[in-house]
Every structure is written in structure tokens, then in C-alpha cells.
């Protein structure tokens, strides 16, 4: 299903509504992601950032609204059209999601083997090229259980890139990484985006890290985009919530204390 899309936008979301049970996750969310850029989607935990990524890939369907990816209305795609669209995407999962029974080489080769008839020699060279680009050609024969968190993330990145996608989605790529691994992943996101002409979307709440590489940021809270712009613009935002998020202040519009009955009354009152 083709639909009108601004020429320089790869993704356009409008009027997105989605709920899980009685909890409303998105309430009329609107955003557009330009081609060729690195876009950060930020927001407090539980605001639905990963859910939004899963809307782009068609793993979740919205209750209402439009999710246009490369001019295609994702929720209305047939199974075969959705799979064709997914071949143009790559996604890096928070826990890397490597296939634990396969070696590093076979993990990266997996999408190629399943989706193409590439001869073995070409496949081998392609996989080694991708592994070289993330610095892990020497780890091709290791098993996922032998990798550190940062190495797993890089193997998953090579796997996500192996079919040369137009769109690369990163779900919390920095969580649990040591400073060296974090620096490597940051560099690879920027490098891959620029060298391969990708469009990258990074879901993260690591404000400092993402500010280094993002061209554009969206801050999501309570089901809507509450701020968008360049990272330096967001730091000077007039919204208290955005400033609290960007500076990591302990208290503010997002309170330190979860709503509770009066403290004194609870301590002194009967149980």
C-alpha cells in the first residue's frame, strides 16, 4: 500500500494511538524521520520507545493512526509485503538476540542464507566484510556465549547490516556497556550511517551519549512527542520535563516518589 510521503522523510507517524490493556501508550503521537539522518527517540522508561520501534517493523499494530515507512502503510501490509519491507530494515535488539546455537559467522550469515541464494564463496566474503567493519573478523568462529556484552552488540550490528538495509533501528544500544565498548558502538553507529547512507533510529535514554551522534531528537512522554529538535536545542528547552530529562535531575515533573499515602500517617497509623 503506497501513500503520500514527504520526499525527504523515510518514516511518518500520525495520530498514532495504542494501548496495552487499560494503559494508554500512545495518544495521537506524530513524528517524521528524515532520510539519511540519525534520529534519537528518548523518553523516561516505560514511555513506549521500544513499542514504537515495533510499530515500524510491523511486529505491533496500532489501535488507530498511520505508520508510513518508505511510503508503505505498515499496519495494512499483507504478510509478503511486510516481509519484503523488513528485508530493507535491520534492527539491533537491546539484548543483541544472537542465535545461541550458531557461531558469530553463522549468526551474521543467517539472514543472507535465509533470504537469498548467494553462493557460499560470496556469502563468506560478505560476512567477513561486515565482521571486519565492526572489528570482529577475528571472532568469526566464537560462539555467542564466548562474547562480551559489547562484542555481542557489535555482532548483532553486523548481522543487522548484512543485507544492506536502508533503515537501521537500534533499541537501547548502549545499555550495560563499559566506556570503551560504548565509545566503539557510538562510533560505529555514526560511521555506518554516513558510509552506507542509512537512516538510523536510536532508542535510548542515555542522553549524554546520544547527544554526540544524533542529528535530531524526539522526546516522548505520556503518549506524545513533548519536544523535538537538535540535542543542543533540547537542552535549552522551555519545558521543565524536557530539561529534567536532559539534565537527569532527580526531582521535577517526573517526581522522585511514586504516589503514596501520607508518610507520617502511614508510619504512625495502624497497619
Amino acid at each position, binding site marked *: 500500500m503506497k501513500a503520500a510521503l514527504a520526499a525527504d522523510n523515510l518514516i511518518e507517524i500520525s495520530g498514532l494511538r495504542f494501548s496495552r490493556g487499560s494503559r494508554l501508550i500512545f495518544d495521537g503521537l506524530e513524528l517524521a524521520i528524515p532520510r539519511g539522518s540519525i534520529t534519537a527517540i528518548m523518553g523516561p522508561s516505560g514511555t513506549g520507545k521500544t513499542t514504537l520501534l515495533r510499530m515500524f*517493523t510491523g*511486529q505491533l499494530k496500532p489501535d488507530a493512526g498511520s505508520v508510513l515507512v518508505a511510503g508503505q502503510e505498515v499496519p495494512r501490509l499483507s504478510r509478503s509485503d511486510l*516481509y*519484503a519491507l*523488513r*528485508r530493507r*530494515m*535491520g*534492527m539491533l*535488539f*537491546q*539484548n543483541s*538476540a*544472537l*542465535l*545461541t546455537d550458531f557461531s558469530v559467522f553463522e549468526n551474521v550469515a*543467517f*539472514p543472507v542464507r*535465509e*533470504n537469498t541464494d548467494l553462493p557460499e564463496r560470496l556469502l563468506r566474503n560478505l560476512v567477513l566484510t561486515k565482521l571486519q567493519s565492526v572489528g570482529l573478523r577475528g571472532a568469526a568462529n566464537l560462539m555467542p556465549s564466548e562474547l562480551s556484552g559489547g562484542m555481542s552488540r557489535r555482532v548483532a550490528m553486523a*548481522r543487522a547490516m548484512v*543485507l544492506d538495509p536502508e533503515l537501521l533501528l537500534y533499541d537501547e544500544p548502549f545499555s550495560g556497556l563499559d566506556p570503551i565498548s560504548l565509545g566503539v558502538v557510538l562510533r560505529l553507529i555514526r560511521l555506518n550511517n554516513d558510509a552506507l547512507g542509512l537512516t538510523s533510529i536510536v532508542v535510548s535514554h542515555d542522553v549524554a551519549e546520544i547527544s554526540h551522534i544524533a542529528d535530531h531528537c524526539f522526546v516522548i512522554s505520556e503518549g506524545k512527542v513533548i519536544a523535538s529538535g537538535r540535542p543542543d536545542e533540547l537542552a535549552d528547552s522551555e519545558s521543565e520535563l524536557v530539561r529534567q530529562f536532559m539534565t537527569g535531575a532527580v526531582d521535577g515533573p517526573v517526581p522522585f516518589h511514586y504516589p503514596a499515602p501520607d508518610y507520617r500517617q502511614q508510619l504512625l497509623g495502624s497497619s
Partner: protein
Amino acid sequence: MTLFMQLQGSLLASMRKLGAVVLFLGEILAQCPAAFTRPRLISAQVHNAGVLSLVIIMTSAFFVGMVIGLQGYDSLARLRQEDILGAGVALTLIKELGPVVTALLFAGRAGTALASEIGLMRATDQLAAMEVMAIDPIRRIVAPRFVGGAISVPLLTAVFNAIGILGAWFIGVYIMGVDGGAFWSQMQEYVDPSDIGEGVSKSIVFGIAASLIAVYEGYNCAPTAEGVGMATTRTVVTTSIAVLILDYMITAFLI
């Protein structure tokens, strides 16, 4: 009233689950032709579910056969009919015990392995990653495991029957002194092809049911450690009940 409502609720939940399992079977069957184009995936699963279950199947079968041999000899000796021990043992194993016990052992050994393997893939986002890579997990993961399991159970049942009969022969002929010629000739005399057909039909149905329940529970488990554990437990419990119910239904239909 509350008890009635609880019963109604649980019956409705069971019906809903049965419907979901049948729909899941439909999805798997739709992907089976694609799975058959990659026989290596299926043979790997026949190895995992079948070959790796051989030790437990053969050991259990030998002891079950010895017990039937002993009990059968004890009962028949009272009627001075020890010579038909071979026929009795073969009919018991081929028509009933072989398919049922094999399916129950398969659920405990291979079914739990299937459910926990697929469940762990769900919990660690491996299945979600495949979906995003435009690889259908039902085609790539579930269908070969289902087919491999469904092929394995009838083959394991045949092995169970053969080893069980050998166990009964060992006790009856070698230990208790039943005439060897009578043991085998009476078996040949009384076991009809229709008896073997009944056993084979049962083992095919049990194989499909046990494999389907295992892959369904694994694929639909909650993506947590507890969810995988519960899926494994449910696989054994549901398969055991399903096999016993199906056994009665097939027996009643065929007799």
C-alpha cells in the same frame, strides 16, 4: 454457584486454548511444504527428538517388557497357558503400551526440550529478531521441530515394541522356562496386521499431539524464566492427559 462458574470459566479457557492450538497447527501445516524443501533441518530435529531419546526409550522398554513378561507368566501359569505369553506380550505392547508409554516418555524427554528451547528463544528475543530479518519463525524454527517430533514418535514406538518384546522373551523363555518356539509361534498366530495398524495409528496421532503441544507451549510462553519453566511443565501435563484421552478415543473407535 461459584463452583459452577469456576468450572464454566475453566471449560471456556480450555476450549479457547484448544482453538488456539488448532489454529497454530494450521499455521504450521501451511509452512510444512517449505520445511520439507530443507530436509537437513528436519533430519537434525529427528536426531534431537528421536535419536537422543533412544537410550531412555530402550531402557524403559526393556524393563516394561520384563514386567509384562513376569506378570503375564504369573497369570498364564495359573491357567496353564504359559505358551501364549508371546502373543499376550506382543498384543499388549503393540496395541497399547508401546504407543502410550513412548509418547509419555517422548513428552518428558524431547517435548520438554522442544518447549524450553523455543521458549528460551522467545525470552531472548531470538524469534522477534528473526521476524525483523524477514524470516518466519514458524517456517524456520517451529515447522521442522514439529515434523521431526511427529516422525520420531512412531519410529521410537517401533523400537520400544521390539525391545519390550525382547525383555519379555528374556524373562519368559530364558528365566521362567517357557518354550521359545511356542513364544514366537503364538505371537505370529495371534497378532494380526490390524493390531499393528492400530498401534501405528496411535503412535502417529500421539506423535502429532505431543510435538504440537511442545512447540505451541514453547512458542507462546511468557518471555521470562518463569514463563519458560511453566511452558515446560504444561508440555508434560497437557501431553500426558491428551495422550490418554486420545488413546481411549482411538481404541473405542477401532474396536
